[in-house]
């Protein structure tokens, strides 16, 4: 795979030994952050493209860069996190997946910026299991994240995620019940007491039809 070759090349530029051994993880993370925050666009690009070689230990330091003022640095950090998450979900790497989930879950905490929590919610929608359900369900009460949390719970298979969606429905604000009901219907649950709002038009145009000539 191209990604693997690129990773090897990049690893050699930052010190392959640092990437290979557990003892070197900290140095590898430091190198990754240094290259992502540096001025050189080419180095930054290679750094995020090959971040999966550094592993889940880089997730928290990368998340700290997501809300920064430097647009390209934030973007590179976000993409580096996704590279790690996509690598951690590969078949046969459950320990890596669990490690990544363990790094991601604390980033859902209240004190984290929305930009971080938003990305982490969607990352957990790909990697997460039952251990993620309660923290995600808590976000169903957060107006700026509830749609993303709902999507994640809809995507995570199993009884617990389904129960979390079902349990949230009775106490949800009236304007949010249709969204939760949509997720439940998508999971195969009949919801008869909440109307489906998907076909109800709401947006008015200010444009008038053309006049006859």
């Amino acid at each position, binding site marked *: 795979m191209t990604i*693997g070759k690129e990773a090897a090349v990049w690893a050699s530029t930052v010190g392959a030994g640092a990437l290979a051994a557990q003892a070197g993880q900290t140095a590898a993370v430091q190198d990754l952050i240094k290259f992502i925050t540096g001025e050189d666009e080419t180095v930054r690009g290679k750094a995020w493209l090959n971040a999966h070689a550094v592993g889940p230990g880089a997730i928290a330091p990368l998340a700290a860069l997501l809300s920064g003022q430097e647009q390209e640095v934030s973007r590179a950090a976000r993409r580096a996190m996704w590279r790690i998450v996509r690598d951690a979900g590969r078949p046969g790497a459950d320990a890596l997946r669990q490690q990544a989930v363990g790094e991601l879950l604390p980033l859902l905490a209240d004190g984290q910026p929305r930009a971080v929590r938003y990305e982490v919610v969607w990352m957990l*929608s790909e990697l997460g299991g039952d251990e993620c359900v309660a923290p995600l369900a808590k976000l169903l009460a957060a107006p700026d994240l509830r749609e*993303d949390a709902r*999507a994640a719970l809809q995507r995570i298979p199993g009884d617990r995620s389904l129960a979390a969606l079902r349990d949230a429905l009775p106490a949800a604000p009236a304007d949010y019940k249709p*969204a939760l009901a949509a997720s439940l219907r998508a999971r195969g649950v009949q919801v008869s007491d909440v109307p489906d709002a*998907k*076909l109800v038009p709401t947006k008015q145009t200010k*444009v008038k039809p053309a006049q006859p000539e």
Partner: protein
Amino acid sequence: MANPNDRMRRRTFLKTAGVAAGGAIGFPHIIRSAALGATGRPGANDRLVTAHIGVGGMGGGHLRDMVGRMGRGEVSVAAVCDADENQLTKASKIAGPQADVYRDYRYILERKDIDAVVIATPDHWHAVQMVHAAECGKHVYVEKPACCTIEEGKAMVKAAKENRVAVQVGSQGRSEHEAYLAHRYLANEVIGKVNRVDCFHYPSPADNNPAPDCDPPPELDWDLWLGPLPWRPYNPRYCHGTFRWILESGGGQIRDRGAHVMSCAMWWMGADGTGPVTIEASGSAPTKGLWDSAVEMDVVYTFKNPDWVLTWSQHPDAGPPPETRREGEPEISRPGYGAIYHGTSGTMLHWGGDGGTWLERKAREWVPPAGAKDVYKSPGHMEDWFMGIKTGKKTIMNIEAAVGVSNLCVLGNISFILGRPIHWDQARQEIVGDEQARRMMSRPQRAPYHL
């Protein structure tokens, strides 16, 4: 609202569509009884009444085409709709005073007098709007690619089937004249059994002029434009046209032109309804900027029973140079993409694959011997849709076939994003052996813009 004084007569539409089809006019059973004179609907003598959802870009072209048909008495254009008021204003002038204007497509779906909709919104809207239209009993012409996720595609097939509506997807290469010649050439095994098809295309652009997020322009309803996608701030590099280079929306060249070139491949190979068993992609992502679709890309699709290989290659100078056309022959205006078909006794080459499809000379000039097989010749992509509405016959790019082609594009991108091969179970319509990839078969949509 509807303009009954200007409504054209449906009988004329049926007659015209029947003539265009060049065949017998059967009972138009697919136009549901509700559309043929039930309470609140125009009677059976009325012409097909259409509405246009998404009227910029390709949507503008479809609208102009349909207005031309209206001038010839074939259809009536009853409404236009767009989330961008500037585009809506332009479209209203093109459509004429009989056409109502809407920002929200759901007003169109509420109208009982509208029989069919033409959907040419950004890709991330195709599935939701097609499914909603079908659920409201409308026939649908929807731009390609059909869908952005595997689960969207399943919902589209289900909605079309359950509501018995005719759906045509805009991979119009299948209806091109030289596509017919190519299909006939391959069906007669002039190059033997085809065991490999190599599609070529130039790269996707990288965003070399990134811009910060900002407020949307006043004419744009950004919430509605985003629709099913997770909410994000407006960015001038992510809107009309440029959505193509964002994976969650346009999916890059593979989901744009791939939905054309691979559509031809699946049609000509007789492979509609089949799928690959493995998909392996590699490529290069843009290293900066908002756009994230692959710049260069290679995908290998391996099919079994019958065994053949389909490849997608997205590189500079990926394909052969265009042939020189003889005087009077249509020029190859888009030579940067196409495909090479490898048979057991030769090759066949074409360029384009969309509304411009150009076949190499030896295949174009092949004269079928007595007893040669013939293949379906489309009367035109729109005419083929009209025929589907009228007769219930499957359209040439019906929703099942179109979803099959879109799935190739979607699976190629999933493999690219994950950086590993994926395995596909065609019978179950599922990625197997990779839980993360399996979850990526769907992307839950933002309420209320969901399936």
